[in-house]
């Protein structure tokens, strides 16, 4: 069966309207997406497809729509990053160490989505334990970006770590997907794939049931093709959850209503420190264009200083590995996942973890263990926590004058699979513009704004005050309307 392109081309908001009007059924919508997924298997986007579950959920949605009791996301097919635990569906975190693990519970965020009527199509690929910026560290192989450079058919990375989710949304295999963002893992892949990615304020979405990477930074959020669609999904992902000790008790607005907020008189900050050496000229001019678009929407640009920006990345590469080394201590071969037998308990741990973790995860656990070890804790970990305070203070200071901050999402467009593989630091630099807001816990959104010289998508990032997702949604909508970003990436891939 070939995919019905009219149905997969819809935005989430359009599909919601079409389902309500009876233009098509949830079953038809789901079948169109399942067929698209089958066409796109060469992109290696899904670790697991869940067609039976999707069809059963769609049938239930059709019953509810017929009975007039449709829920807010009734019948909307989604991809779920395989970092969210899903009851009865294997969850891998793209790691060999979770081999055979099937959660007996549902993550808080996905439970909310299913309660709202959404339908799961499958679990999307990611960097192992969400550690990576290219989706090449997955135990299940790299994801290919549906976009290609003009006149060059080499497969490119989709960004990471939510690379499968971003590629799935770009190739129109689902109407939206969940992602998680620790240092840029929603926003950077969204930029590389020409889609929208929203990282909410830390504490907005419950971390309960999301495989932990760095708990003081991890945050779930939506990836979609439009700003409106991200606003719709976030409304049904966010909310207080007592099971997450850092979940914030704070009312969840209907984020979609923020689309039409007036921007007149608001100030947009342009941080001079984000003009880094070697930045792509295309990105620099797109950034200037973005400022102009927001001026047209009535905003006033203000040059601001975020003086500790250059230190954010090294801070992150101490704190995130430190938290990861602690979080990943639970993978011991005893309670779930992979086990390699050893002569004694210690050997069993060492063989299991030696075999179960891939290179990047191993590297980060070792760094984390080192910076937390006796004699080095103060010099590395404590120092990084102090500089984190300074990074956060920079933002506090800036938000006394401005209402949003506009930056590029990443310093370049998608690169080829295999590039930057042998230089961890070059890979880490992908997150140079996304990490600072993560350290400060602030909301950020990446919106596709144009193409580079090779015809690849570039994104602009808006960062807002804590719990003010609404202003960045409104500003992102203003950029989206003026950028009129277009492009039709393919579904062809080379994965076996």
């Amino acid at each position, binding site marked *: 069966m070939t995919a019905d392109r009219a149905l997969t081309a819809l935005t989430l908001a359009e599909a919601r309207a079409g389902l309500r009007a009876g233009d098509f059924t949830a079953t038809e919508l789901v079948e169109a997406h399942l067929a698209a997924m089958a066409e796109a298997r060469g992109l290696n986007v899904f670790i697991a497809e869940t067609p039976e579950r999707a069809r059963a959920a769609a049938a239930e949605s059709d019953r509810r729509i017929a009975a007039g009791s449709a829920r807010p996301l009734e019948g909307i097919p989604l991809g779920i990053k395989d970092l969210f635990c899903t009851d009865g569906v294997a969850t891998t975190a793209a790691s060999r160490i979770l081999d*055979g*693990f*099937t959660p*007996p519970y549902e993550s808080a965020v996905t439970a909310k989505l299913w309660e709202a009527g959404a339908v799961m199509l499958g679990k999307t690929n990611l960097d192992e334990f969400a550690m990576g910026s290219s989706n090449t560290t997955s135990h299940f192989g790299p994801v290919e970006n549906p976009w290609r450079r003009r006149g060059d058919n080499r497969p490119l990375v989709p960004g990471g770590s939510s690379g499968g989710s971003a590629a799935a949304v770009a190739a129109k295999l689902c109407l939206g997907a969940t992602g998680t963002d620790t240092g840029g893992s929603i926003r950077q892949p969204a930029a590389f794939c020409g889609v929208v990615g929203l990282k909410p304020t*830390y*504490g907005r979405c419950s971390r309960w049931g999301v495989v932990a990477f760095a708990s*003081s930074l991890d945050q779930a959020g939506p990836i979609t093709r439009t700003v409106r669609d991200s606003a719709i999904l976030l409304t049904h992902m966010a909310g207080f959850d*007592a099971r997450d*000790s*850092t979940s*914030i008790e704070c009312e969840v607005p209907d984020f979609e209503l923020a689309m039409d907020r007036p921007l007149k008189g608001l100030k947009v900050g342009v941080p001079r420190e984000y003009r880094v050496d070697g930045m792509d000229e295309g990105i620099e001019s797109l950034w200037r264009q973005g400022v102009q678009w927001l001026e047209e929407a009535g905003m006033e640009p203000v040059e601001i200083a975020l003086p*500790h920006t*250059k*230190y954010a990345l*090294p*801070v992150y*590469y101490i704190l995130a590995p430190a938290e990861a080394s602690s979080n990943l*201590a639970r993978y*011991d*071969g*005893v*309670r*779930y*996942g*992979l*086990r390699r*037998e*050893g002569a*004694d308990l*210690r*050997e*069993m*741990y*060492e*063989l299991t*973890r*030696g*075999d179960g*973790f891939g290179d990047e995860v*191993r*590297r980060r*656990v*070792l*760094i984390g*263990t*080192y910076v937390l*070890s006796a004699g080095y804790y103060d010099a*590395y970990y404590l*120092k990084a*926590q*102090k*500089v*984190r*305070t*300074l990074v*956060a203070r920079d933002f506090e200071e800036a938000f006394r004058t401005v209402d949003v901050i506009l930056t590029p999402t990443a310093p370049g467009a998608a690169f080829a699979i295999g590039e930057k593989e042998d230089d*961890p*630091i070059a890979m880490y630099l992908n997150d140079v513009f996304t990490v600072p807001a993560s350290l400060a*816990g602030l909301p950020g959104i990446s919106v596709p704004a144009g193409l580079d010289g090779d015809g690849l998508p570039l994104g602009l990032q808006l960062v807002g005050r*804590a719990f003010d997702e609404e202003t960045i949604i409104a500003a992102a909508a203003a950029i989206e309307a003026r950028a009129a970003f277009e492009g039709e990436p393919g579904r062809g891939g080379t994965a076996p």
Partner: protein
Amino acid sequence: MSLDKATVARIASLARIRIPEQDLDGLATELSKILGWIEQLSEVDTSDVPPMSQTAPAKLRWREDKVTDGGVRDKVLANAPDARDGFFTVPKVVE
């Protein structure tokens, strides 16, 4: 900061990760490079700056002291690589 092979082996042992001997040199170079890059933080004056561990308010919530979950032994054990008679099994630890 430069890490030698022996230090990498010691960290790996702390982290309970078996690393093949032939990987140790490469890892020592890689990790030294990363730590060297991280060391630029020493330029920053952090005297009188408090450390930050969370962006959320540091105060933890209180709740009533009662059981909120549990009674799911079989579900918990269902994922164990080896479980017998309602227990996780591990290699013998006491002679």
